[in-house]
Structure formats: structure tokens, C-alpha cells
């Protein structure tokens, strides 16, 4: 594997454009745009303050740079370098900023989550959305970019607002049966919205696009509940990772659990192959906890040599302090491969920041704090 020279960046703000041609990095208050193939600097922009958040627009024409301290958002154009746009939230402050799916609107969440301001770059119009909820994942756009779901908290009750991204028309507004809504996520086909409760209560609710409650799922009571949720790309499965170190998979027809995967400390079987009962060709899910992939050799070994350990393998588990809130146990990261065949999970306090699958579905990249690891899936066995 070849590595290029090292470029400076701050805040881990380094993103490739959606069309894959450009690479944008932020260095302090500068925004550097490079060509991906040659890594030559194409554009250089200067923002007014240190950039806290940087995001490409969906058509790769604009870059958003948000400076939360100053409450400013600056938008830069790739086509027209001298085009500029500055959004000042004023005294109300800025907590987060993001693009809308069409790449022409910017949603700014003000401080204290007072409101979400929708700025239109086409018409300079402003819309306000009141009472957004401050939670793990309060806003989600559907994959086709047509609808936006936003969590709302009003009068000590949770609501979900569904907006049409075209003209920000409020399509649906319904109350959810959650105690304290922690997050929501659209299914990839855009027809089902998964809503889950905070970790104090294990509850996952599934709403249809028009606001009807399709199903509720709750695995157990009292213990800490859902930690992470992920849809499979085919919208057939919903994987729920919880604090009890188990991943439960629901199917989209009955919304009932079809299987669950455990992450025991001692691993006896490296592969559990599960073929779902629907007999779809080639669809199954192969559970490989992260530690399996490393196969016993340390991830942090500087020589990066991997060896195959004989079974059973004992995973070094650090028991987290149970008295602390949000303990570092449970499944925190879930990632489906693109053909829904594999599910990669991260359990416990391993130093893995992200899991990402290659779009072909047979290789996985793990990003640690200081290392990265590429895993290739063989049809029969894990390798590399």
C-alpha cells in the first residue's frame, strides 16, 4: 500500500467530495481543496474563524464551513471561487450546521436547540422549525433526499415532524410513544422510519412514511437499552445494538426478531452463518465481531502482523466502570455490507472509531485512533 505525503488538518475535517474528484481539508481557518488523483491544490479559501465543521454539498459544487464559536457559516463554490456566502446566526448562536440533500439549503441548529433555521441559497428565504430535540440523532434525511424527519420535544412529549425537502412543507407531525426519543433513522427505501428511545428504556418504534405506527420492539426492560441502530441497505433488516452486548436483527415483514448475535468474551466459533428463512439467493448475514477479524493479533502491533489463533480465543475485556453513565459497554457501531450479507459490529471499549464497508461488499476498513485496518472477506474464511 502506498501512502502519499502527510497533509495537515485540524479537527479531523478531511472529506472527499461526493463525486469523488476532490478532497477538502481544513487547516485552522483555511479550506484546502485538492484534486484526488494528483493531490494538487485546486482551491484555497479562507474562513473567518477556525472551522468547526465542514461539509460538501451533495452535488460537489459547494462546501460549507461552520464556525460554531462565531455562529457563522460560510459557503464556498468550486465553480466560482469568488462566489461567497455568509450566514450569520447572530446572537442566537450555532450548534450544528448541515446541508439539505438538494445542496441548496443549509440547516442551522441554534444554541440550546432553540430552533432550526433553514436558509435557502436560491431565494435567501428563511424558515424556522421550532422545538427541535437535542438528542443523539435528531435529524435524518431519507436516502433519496425527498423527506426529512426531525425529532421535536414539546410539552414534555416527543413528536416527529416529516418535511418535504422540496419546499419544506410539513407533511406529517405525529407523537411518538417514546419516553425520551434518542434518535431516528429512515430506512434506505424511504418508507419506514425507525425511532428509538434513550438508553433508559429499550424501545424501538417503526413508523411508516405517512405517520402510522407499524410496530414496536422491546427486548427487555429496566436494563440499559439501545445503543446503536443500523438499517441494512436492502431495507430488509434492522440491526439494533444494545448495552447488553447483543445485536438483535429484525426483519421488515413482521418486525420481529429473527436472530441475535452475542459478543461473548470467549469465542468458540469464528463463523456463525445464518441463512434467513426467506430463501433469497445469496442473502444471509455473517456475524464477525471486530475482535474476530483481528484474530488474536493485536491491532496496535507496530509490525502489523496477523496470525491465526487457535480457538477458543479469549478477548481481553476491560470491565467498564458501571457507576458511570453511558458505560463503554455494548454495541456502539454497526455496519452492514452493501449487499446485506455481512454485519460488522464493535462491542465494548475497543479503540475503533468507525467501520466502513467497501461498496463491493467484500472488504471492510476499520479506523482506529492511530491505525487503520483493511479486512478482505473471502467467501469461505476471513483473511488478511
Amino acid at each position, binding site marked *: 500500500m502506498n501512502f502519499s505525503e502527510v497533509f495537515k488538518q485540524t479537527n479531523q475535517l478531511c472529506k472527499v467530495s461526493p463525486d469523488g474528484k476532490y478532497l477538502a481539508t481544513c487547516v485552522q481557518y483555511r479550506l484546502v481543496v485538492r484534486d484526488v488523483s494528483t493531490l494538487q491544490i485546486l482551491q484555497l479559501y479562507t474562513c473567518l474563524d477556525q472551522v468547526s465543521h465542514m461539509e460538501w454539498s451533495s452535488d460537489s459544487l459547494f462546501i460549507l464551513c461552520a464556525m460554531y464559536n462565531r455562529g457563522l457559516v460560510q459557503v464556498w463554490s468550486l465553480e466560482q471561487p469568488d462566489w461567497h456566502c455568509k*450566514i450569520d446566526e447572530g446572537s442566537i448562536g450555532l450548534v450544528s450546521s448541515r446541508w439539505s440533500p438538494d445542496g*441548496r439549503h443549509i440547516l442551522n441548529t441554534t444554541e440550546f436547540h432553540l430552533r432550526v433555521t433553514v436558509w435557502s*441559497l*436560491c431565494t435567501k428565504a428563511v424558515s424556522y422549525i421550532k422545538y427541535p430535540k437535542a438528542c443523539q440523532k435528531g435529524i435524518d434525511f431519507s436516502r433519496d433526499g425527498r423527506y426529512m424527519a426531525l425529532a421535536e420535544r414539546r410539552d414534555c412529549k416527543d413528536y416527529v415532524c416529516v418535511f418535504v425537502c422540496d419546499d419544506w412543507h410539513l407533511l406529517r407531525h405525529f407523537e411518538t410513544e417514546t419516553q425520551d426519543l434518542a434518535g431516528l433513522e429512515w430506512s434506505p427505501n424511504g418508507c419506514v422510519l425507525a425511532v428509538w428511545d434513550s438508553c433508559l428504556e429499550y424501545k424501538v418504534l417503526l413508523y411508516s412514511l405517512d405517520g402510522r405506527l407499524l410496530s414496536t420492539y422491546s427486548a427487555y426492560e429496566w436494563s440499559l437499552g439501545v445503543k446503536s441502530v443500523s438499517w441494512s441497505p436492502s431495507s430488509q433488516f434492522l440491526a439494533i445494538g444494545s448495552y447488553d452486548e447483543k445485536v438483535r436483527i429484525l426483519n421488515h415483514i413482521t418486525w420481529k426478531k429473527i436472530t441475535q448475535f452475542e459478543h461473548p468474551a470467549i469465542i468458540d466459533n469464528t463463523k456463525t452463518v445464518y441463512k434467513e428463512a426467506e430463501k433469497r439467493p445469496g442473502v444471509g448475514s455473517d456475524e464477525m465481531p471486530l475482535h474476530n477479524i483481528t484474530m488474536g493479533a493485536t491491532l496496535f502491533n507496530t509490525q502489523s502482523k496477523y496470525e491465526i489463533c487457535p480457538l477458543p480465543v479469549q478477548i481481553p475485556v476491560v470491565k467498564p466502570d458501571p*457507576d458511570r453513565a453511558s458505560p463503554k459497554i455494548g454495541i456502539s457501531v454497526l455496519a452492514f455490507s452493501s449487499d446485506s450479507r455481512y454485519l460488522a459490529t464493535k462491542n465494548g471499549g475497543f479503540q475503533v472509531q468507525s467501520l466502513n464497508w467497501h461498496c463491493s461488499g467484500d472488504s471492510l476498513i476499520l479506523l482506529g485512533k492511530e491505525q487503520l485496518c483493511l479486512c478482505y472477506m473471502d467467501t469461505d474464511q476471513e483473511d488478511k
Partner: protein
Amino acid sequence: MPESSTVKDVLSSSVECRTSPLRRFSLSALHRNSLGVFCSEDNVQECLSHISQEVSSFGLRPAWTEPGSGSELNIVAALNCMYDLIQLHRRGLRTLENMEVEQLKSNSNVDFLQLSTTRLKEQLEISKRENTGLLERERQLQLKVKSLQNCLKNEKEEVQKLQNVIASRASQYNHEMKRKEREFNKLKERLNQLLVDKKEKKQAIDVLNNIGRADGKRSLWKTEKMEAKHEGEMYKTLLSDYDTRQRELQLENAELRKVLQQMKKDMVSILSSRKPAAKGDKHEHGGTQAASEEEDDEAFDSSKESVELYCVHAREKLTNSIRLQWRRLKSHVERLDSQVSSAQTGESKSTDAVPRETHEEEMDRLKLEIQQCKDFIQAQQQLLQQQLSSPCDEETASLLSDCYMLQEKERLGDEWKTLEEQRKIFERERRNFTEAAIRLSHERKAFEEDRATWLKHQFLNLSPFSDSKKPSLSKSKSAFLISAETDSSAAVAPEKFIKHRSESPRCVPLTSPSTADLYRTLCLIPEDSSTKPKRKTEHVEESSVFCGNAPVRHKRWDGIQDRTLSQEKNSSI
């Protein structure tokens, strides 16, 4: 009592008297003492000596000394002796009494002891039972104690878990509360800051120029139509999703249904193939019942195979039948497994020996059947060979070659013959008809000519020179007749002709005969009163009756008819 005792004494003494001579006196004593008395006049001395010996043996003073006098009895001594004997006897009786009493006592003691032992044994039994009962209770209580201890342990664990849960929840709540408090504080600070801060920074956007929409279209106003459109689009998305899902499920259902059908077919085939072999094995459930069920299933199969199983009942039937077959297959496999395991362990259980025996019986029976069939086939083969190789006449051969179809063939031949005859008849009739038609035309022509000549004659006869023409007419007429007729019945015609010749001049109007008359003469249409058998005769009569119109023609037709009739007669034979 004493009297009886004395009597007893006397009796006993007499007995003794009787016995002792038998003892002491041997043969000689027996001869003498036939009366049974101890002492008689003869043996007084011996008796005396004997008694004195006896008395002395008892320890008593002898009654008398051994004198030379002999027969003198010392009465005093004898009485003393007797008295001593009596005392002795009394003493004996007393001791006997005592001993009897003592025996009674000991008997009653024994009884008492026996009773007490039985009672004690019973008590022992009872106490043993109580003991076992108590032991049992103790065991049960111990078990209960153990289970309660387990419960307690579980409860403790659960309590511990719940405590952990509560602890974690509490920490979570505390954390949240702290976070909220921090946020609240920040809010308060911010509010203070804002109150203090005079300069309020407003929100603003500063764009160089508007940029177009991503899709290039103009943005639309928010109207109700737009809202409706959005709703519509949303529902469209949902519907299309449901559609695709339903289609996929349908495909899946079809596949699964196919698989189920296949499975069912396989299972039925397996079960039916092993049915004849395992008929002897069925010792658990009636073979007839199973057979009928399988027949039902097979019938069901054939009838429902082509029908799509879309209705709930058919689906249920399919699943139920599959479950049934599967259960049967499972039981069969289990039975086989048990047989195999018992064969492996070498135990000869009666239940397993039975199917083996019956199986062997089956085998023998089948072998026998096979042998019989083979023999049968051999025999048939031989017969067939014989049949083919044996010499036979051509007639019989030809007969035998088609012996199965003989009857049919004969019938067919007969029918064919009749058909042929009919065909010939029709042919003949047609020919006759055509001939008749030809003749008719000829004769008509002749008649016309004749008429013409006759008219000419008449016309000419008006003149005085007509007589010379007469014989020529007759000649021409006869010539006509001769030319028209061909058969021997021409003899008839001239007669009639002669008969009618005289009449012919009288018949003035000569109209050509109508087709009806023609047909009638040819008897192609039936007369009003004619019947078939009388046909010929009537026509002959009619021919004589019809003399009004064209008698000549009539007669000619009649002749023809006669000829045809005769021809028919010939042909029918």
C-alpha cells in the same frame, strides 16, 4: 372323686393283674389264665411270691414272709400293704393332679406369652411404619429446603441484578440531570449576557448572488395543490414499496409452495413404495387405515395438482397433508432406527422379532410368487411354440388365423352381400329407368309420327282414297311394336294390339300420357288401393282397364313393366 379313684384303683389294679401275668408268665401263664384272672387256685404261691416281690420293689414291707406254710396270709401285713399301696396310689394321684394343674398353668402362660408376642410384633410393625413415614417426611422437607434455598439464591441474584440496574439507571438519571442543569446554567448565563448586551446581532445571510436550484427548475409557491401533490407523492412511494414487497412475497410463496408440493410428492412416493414391503411390519396402526389415508392423499394429489392453491382451505389442506405425511415418515424412520439400534445391540425383543419374521415371511412369499410366475411364463411360452410350430390344414389355418374375428367377419360379409344386392338392384332400376326413358322418348317420337301419319290418313281418309292406307297403318303399327319390343312377351303385345286395334280408331283424342300415368305404370308411385304383393296382378288388370287414354302406350308400358317385373324376378333369385 375318691370313689372313682378307688374304682380307678381297682380297675388299674385289675389291669395290672391282667398285664403282669402276661408279662411274668410266659406261655404257660397264658395257657392257664384264659379267663384273664391273675390269681387262681393253681398259682397262688407264684402269685404270692410275685406280689411280695412287687411290694418289696415298691419299698413297702412285704406282706408276708416266705414261709414253709405258704398259703397262710398275714392279714395285718396284707392290710398294711394294701393301705400302703393305697397311700402310694393316692400320692401318685395327687402328684398327677398337681402336675396337671401345673401343666394348665404353663399352657395358659404360653398362651399369654404368645398373645403378648403377637401384640408386640404388631406394635413393632406400626412403629417401623411410622419410622419410615417420618424418614420420608424428613426427606421431602429436605428437598423442599433445598429448592427453597435455590429460590432464595435466584431471588438474591435477581435482587442483585435489579440493584445493579437501579444503580445504572440512577447514575444515568444523575448524569442527565447534571447535563440538563449545566445546560440550564449556560442558558441562564446566555440570557444574562443577552440582557446585558446592548448590541443585538441579528441573523443575516449575505450571498453574492442567488444560485439556481439543484434540479434547475423554478421553485414553486406553497399552495394547497402543492400540498396535495406532496401527499400524493408520499402515498405513491408507499404504495410502490408495498407493491414490490407483495410481488416478492408472492414469488417466494410460489417457490415455497412448489417446494412443499415436491416434498409431499416425494414423501408420498417414499411411503407408498415402502407400503407393500412394510404391510407386515404394521403392528401399531391398522394397515387399512393408513392405506386409505394414502389413497385419499393420492387422490387429492391428482385432483389438486393442477389447481393453484390460493384459497385458504387448499393451503390448509396442503400443509395438513404435508404434516401428516411427515409424521408418518418420521414414525417410519423412528421405527427403523429402533430396529437398527436393537439389531446393533443384539437384544432380541419380541416387538422387533416380529417384523423381522414377517419380513422374512414376506420375502419367502414373494420368492414363491416369482417362481410361480416364471413357471407360468414358461408354460405359456411352450404353448405358444407349439401353436406356431404344429402343422395344420390350410382351411383350419385360415380359420384359426382369424378365429377371433370369424363371427364379425361373417356378419360383415352378410351385410356386404345385402348391400351389394341392393346396389345392383338400384343400378338395374336406374338402368331400366333410363332405358324406359329412352324408349319413351323413342316411342313418343314414333307416336308423334304415327299420329301425324294417322292424322294425315284421316285427313286423307276424308277423301275416298283412304282404305288403301289402312293396312299400311297396321303394318306400321305392328312394325312399331316389333321395333319397340325386344322380348318374348311380344306375343302378348300383338294380341292386345289386335284386341285394341279395333278400339284404337275409336279413341279420338290421343293425349300423351302424363308423367303420373307413366310413373304409375312403372309402379314408381303407389296406387290408392294397391298393395305390394298384388302389384303385379293389379297392374295387369289396370292395364286392361286403362283403355281411355293412349291404350297403345299403356299396353306398351305394361309390357315393359312386365318385362321389368320378370327381370326383377330373375334377379331376386
